[in-house]
């Protein structure tokens, strides 16, 4: 079966009318989708121009410095992705390659937590973070984020590992390889693409997270970009100049995610698609 990538078209030959209608439909919706972002950029330079960006990059608002939020977000995101990929890969290997009693039951037990909403864990995460002494630490945010991502990670990676030909494993076993050796030299290398996809998605999800930073990182120096959207709000007066600067701050807070979408597009989209149901 020939497989086409996203870059290739379906073998449909649009007639003139069909093509015009298609382009019109797509362009209208693309404009509608881009409108909020265009509006934000327009408003940010309406009064004061691009100097607003210099202003908000160099000042702090309610103790929050925007460049520092990028650093905080990056640290949390890397921790989150590292936890998810490492713990997820180990667990997926066990479910895929090791035959033990109750394997499938445990696997579905893991997937059961796919639908747990972060808000339902607010109270216990607050309690646990205090107990573990993790308030105002990057790990305090990365841990609950990672736990909520792990069900998806295990699903994604097990699907990949199930596709690894068993002949490779049997050959390794004949050479007296242990599970640790098979994991390091067979399963991990062949899952590298999926791990890259998972890492990209984990970073995206971490950058998006507002809930856990808002309850764990009370120190303004620790604020993440998603959290800063709320934290800095009251620092801007409702005047034309400061409203424009507020929008400049919002645009800047979205820049890291936009850059990742542009440069890691393949990994993000592959990760999204690979998580689906297999035929």
């Amino acid at each position: 079966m020939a497989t086409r990538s996203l870059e290739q078209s379906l073998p449909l030959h649009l007639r003139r009318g069909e093509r015009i209608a298609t382009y019109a439909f797509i362009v209208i919706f693309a404009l509608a989708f881009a409108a909020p972002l265009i509006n934000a950029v327009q408003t940010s330079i309406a009064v004061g121009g691009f100097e607003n960006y210099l202003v908000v990059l160099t000042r702090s608002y309610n103790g929050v410095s925007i460049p520092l939020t990028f650093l905080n977000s990056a640290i949390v995101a890397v921790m989150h992705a590292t936890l998810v990929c490492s713990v997820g890969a180990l667990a997926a290997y066990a479910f895929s390659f090791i035959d033990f009693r109750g394997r499938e039951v445990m696997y579905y037990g893991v997937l059961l937590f796919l639908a747990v909403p972060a808000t339902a864990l607010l109270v216990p995460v607050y309690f646990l973070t205090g107990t573990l002494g993790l308030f105002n630490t990057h790990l305090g945010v990365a841990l609950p984020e990672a736990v909520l991502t792990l069900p998806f990670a295990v699903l994604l990676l097990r699907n990949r590992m199930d596709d690894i030909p068993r002949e490779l494993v049997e050959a390794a076993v004949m050479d007296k390889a242990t599970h640790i050796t098979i994991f390091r030299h067979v399963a991990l290398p062949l899952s590298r693409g999926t791990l890259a996809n998972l890492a990209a998605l984990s970073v995206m999800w971490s950058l998006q997270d507002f809930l856990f930073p808002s309850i764990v990182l009370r120190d303004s120096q620790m604020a993440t970009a998603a959290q800063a959207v709320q934290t800095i709000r009251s620092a801007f007066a409702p005047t034309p100049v400061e409203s424009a600067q507020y929008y400049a701050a919002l645009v800047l807070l979205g820049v890291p995610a936009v850059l990742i979408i542009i440069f890691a597009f393949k990994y993000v989209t592959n990760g999204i698609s690979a998580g689906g149901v297999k035929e």
Partner: protein
Amino acid sequence: MTRVTTSKLTKPRGGSKALPPRGGVSRVALKGGWYAVGFLAPLGILYSVYFLFSFGILGVVSTQRVGLTFRNAVDVGFQNFVLVAGDPAFQGALMNTIAFAAFSVAVSLSLGFILAMMLASGIRMRRAFYTIFLLPSLIPMSLFATVFGRMLETRDGAINEFLRAIGLGFAAQDWLGDPTAAYVAVGVIITYAIGLPIMYYSTDVAQVQASVMESATLDGASVWQIYRIMLFPLLRTTHITVILSVVLGSFRAFDIIYFSTAGQPGGRTDITGTYIYKATLGLDRIGYAAAASILVLLVALAFSVVQIIVRRKAL
């Protein structure tokens, strides 16, 4: 297909196990149990602490009247559950969560599907369009919803200004003050999240055999007919994926509501997420929030069971 292949491969291995000289294989198999413990330990620890222990904490706290300091707790039995279940605001939030999830599924299966098919049909600058549709889903939702929320303002919000500018001033609404208008606004922002469904459809439609569509084209079918009659049924498993992922996402749609309408007017657009958040950080009613959390978790876990069953049958 994967299952069939796996079962074929399994038989030879079973046969080889029967041969006495290959005791090494059985030795590895025997060690599997302990290896499994080792490989699963990190996951087990994280799950035990952040899920199981969390559920325990919720169970205890939900029977108390207590604040965020967790001190001076007073036992109140199941009073918190009675109060939450009887609260019209919680009932409304639960209904909203379900309604918004249903709307999200509907718009994903219709608009998401159509846009994905069109993008796959020879459109130029495809990647740019994918990026535009994905952006709202991948930048911080707190950010996107804040910008959108500002656009909703009655007097100088961009939406009403745009409507007046194109001569539709009568359509300008008090988006945050009128319940019906607020629901429309939430529906619009939910629609902005169809980037992920578009990706699912676009990737899966790329797997459809070319000859199927070529023969339909030769028969004179229009592209709309091909989309509706041929491709929509063929992408059945993708619909399942989209429904499951969208509903899962809806359980986590806190930011969308909190930063756009903040539950206005008067809590009418609250979902369970914003309800719990306000109870926890706004009202400092931790026992109450814990009881609400347990009720929400029961619904979420019930849905998880359903999706596991559906997913199994889909494989």
